[in-house]
């Protein structure tokens, strides 16, 4: 009895092993604790399911394992370790938050698994010079260049900065302050850091009002940005003072929560809802109907672009997908992603990678688009101010 049971277990294990063979395994770790965060994850699942329904990639099906890291580095690291060593994935996608992507870079470098980043903007991620990392979104080093130039040329140099305590906001805002200092010799008229979950910014805003700046810049996540904008009017800062915000201002809840206070606010992002290209219009209506999202932000477009880039790379990679060839398959996928050149999707500019493990090669998109809110509310409207492709070595 015991012997036959053992045989059954062994047969089961072997069957599971053979079921794995021929399957491309992808692990995704993302921040799925907000409504939009869950939708990005859902979209990834749906897109890979659609690839499988249409025959897979070179006849191979894709298995996506999606885990939540709650924007916590320890959970992200655990997820990445699980993907790399237990699930034996061929590719890791993640994460949404820079503070999670940063340590995962070290895990994927040691395990030698290719990692492609959907949303994190912190410039330190690619400065680690890992041969296994690729970034689809725009690095904060490019954002700061575009915003600083626009502020200096079109707005003025008297700028007040307030930023929340999240990795992306800090990197974006502090980088911008440094850029204004280094390139234009301008010091901030006011600089303050707030708590990640702080909701009352009026003490800062009252001080800023007395300083009468040309512009106020706020770096933070979507809800704090919306509150900050509303409160800036509540304390009586006139509309003539330009309001600018970090790339998270692109997220749909900002105009919905801020209402008319969002009018005139500008920010830089990787995608604009008002993009008039047919592909963008098609994408907007697809996301609206399928996920019930009114304002399609750049995190949706970046997740979508990432899937298409992965599809292209997997299609070009010479994969055996046998368990013994896992390391070779991972290397082949890494090299195939590095060979993606001039991908034109939803992003504001072409996305290209190359083989060197440097930020120049691994920050794929270097075309931020400057966007301004024309109307707020649920049916908000935005306009494109400018689209700038930055020099590849900018900010290094």
């Amino acid at each position: 009895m015991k012997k036959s049971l053992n045989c059954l277990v062994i047969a089961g294990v072997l069957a599971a092993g053979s079921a794995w063979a021929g399957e491309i395994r992808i692990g995704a770790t993302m921040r799925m604790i907000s409504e939009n965060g869950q939708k990005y994850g859902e979209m990834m699942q749906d897109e890979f399911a659609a690839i499988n329904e249409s025959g897979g990639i070179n006849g191979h099906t894709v298995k996506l394992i999606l885990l939540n890291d709650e924007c916590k580095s320890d959970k992200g690291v655990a997820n990445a370790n699980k993907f790399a060593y237990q699930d034996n994935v061929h590719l890791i996608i993640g994460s949404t938050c820079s503070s999670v992507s940063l340590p995962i870079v070290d895990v994927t470098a040691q395990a030698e698994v290719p990692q492609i980043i959907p949303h994190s903007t912190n410039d330190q991620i690619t400065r680690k010079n890992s041969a296994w990392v690729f970034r689809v979104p725009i690095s904060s080093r490019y954002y700061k260049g575009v915003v600083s130039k626009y502020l200096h040329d079109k707005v003025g140099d008297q700028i007040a900065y307030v930023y929340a305590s999240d990795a992306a906001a800090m990197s974006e805002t502090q980088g911008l302050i440094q850029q204004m200092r280094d390139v234009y010799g301008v010091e901030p008229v006011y600089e303050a850091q707030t708590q990640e979950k702080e909701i009352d910014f009026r003490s800062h805003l009252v001080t800023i009002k007395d300083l009468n700046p040309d512009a106020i810049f706020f770096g933070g996540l979507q809800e704090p940005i919306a509150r900050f904008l509303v409160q800036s009017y509540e304390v009586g800062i006139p509309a003539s003072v330009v309001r600018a915000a970090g790339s998270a201002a692109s997220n749909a809840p900002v105009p919905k929560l801020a209402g008319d206070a969002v009018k005139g606010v500008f920010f830089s992002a990787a995608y604009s809802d008002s993009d008039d290209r047919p592909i963008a219009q098609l994408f907007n209506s697809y996301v609206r109907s399928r996920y019930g999202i009114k304002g399609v932000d750049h995190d949706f477009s970046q997740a979508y672009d990432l899937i298409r880039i992965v599809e292209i790379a997997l299609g070009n990679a010479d994969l055996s997908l046998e368990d013994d060839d896992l390391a070779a398959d991972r290397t082949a996928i890494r090299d195939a992603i590095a060979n993606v050149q001039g991908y034109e999707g939803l992003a504001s500019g072409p996305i290209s990678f190359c083989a060197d493990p440097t930020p120049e090669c691994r920050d794929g998109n270097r075309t931020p688009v400057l966007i301004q809110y024309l109307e707020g509310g649920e049916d908000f409207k935005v306009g494109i101010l400018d689209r700038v492709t930055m020099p590849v070595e900018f900010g290094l």
Partner: protein
Amino acid sequence: MLTLIDGIEAFIGRLKAIHPLLPWLVALLLLLPVPHFTANNYQVYLINFICIMIILATGLNIVKGFAGQVTVGHVALYAIGAYTSAVLSTKFGMPFYVNLPVSILAAMIFGVLVGLPSFRLEGAYLALATLAFAQAVEVYIRVTNYLGAASGIGGIKPPEFFGFTLRNYDEYYYLVMPIMLLAVYASFAILRSATGRAFMAVREDPISAASMGVNVRRYKLIAFVMSAFYAGLAGSLYAHMLPGYVHPNNFTVIEMVTVLLMVVLGGIGNIWGGIIGAIIVTIVADITREYYFYQLLLFGAVIVGTVLFMPKGIGGIIDRYFVNRRFVAARELTAVAKRGVVGSASREE
């Protein structure tokens, strides 16, 4: 299962009879080859993490279980240990063997600060004071650029001994596992010492303890400092484990609830219970990783369920089993002795 527990207890008893340290030496020898029996590196990573959680839970058990002080600031001391190591390693280039004791010392100094309110506060009020301390530490780290603020501190070097660097989880296991065993052994030693008895006296009734000559304030403070020792140790080990990255998000109230769950589920005041709790909670958290929507709900339900139906936790059940068994054995022994006495009396007649 019960036969197995009985067998283990008998085996430990025989080893103890030879030398009190022998069971621990055998445990060390049994645990040494564990990485070779795991299926992959991820499992070794999980075991390392469990060892760190055991140290952390054992520390919490000293102050909460032994001394009866309601603290929810333990995770802040863990953060202080981790960040001290991170700063020393990345900003001063100090090696692990320097960082570890300094981190422990830093956590112990803050342990005194956490312990001071316990002189005047008890129960929910002490819990609130320690919660405020935990929040203050998290917020301070989050806004301090020197401490990496919201970006965290990366690049913490792995431990190096005589030119040999612990670069992967397998190698790190041989550092973290013996330290965990030593920490658990020390907690048993504390429990059995005069200090441990004083802790328990303070827990049961501070006024009675004081009337018996126990310096209540002193022992409350010692409990907090000892607990901080464990938290600092766990924090330093966590910081130096791959990928060598610490972030304020790893030291929030949710982490505190998780460590509390380990102690409550295992059994407050029961060292083995705390260890079992740390193992179960870490494994359950891993297994339910894909059901992340329900994870915290599950943890909360387990805490409520344990408090309602199993107030002494898993350790309490095991303890009750042993107490019952000893009681039955003693009763049988008495009955046999009585029969013997009766038999010899009737023979004499």
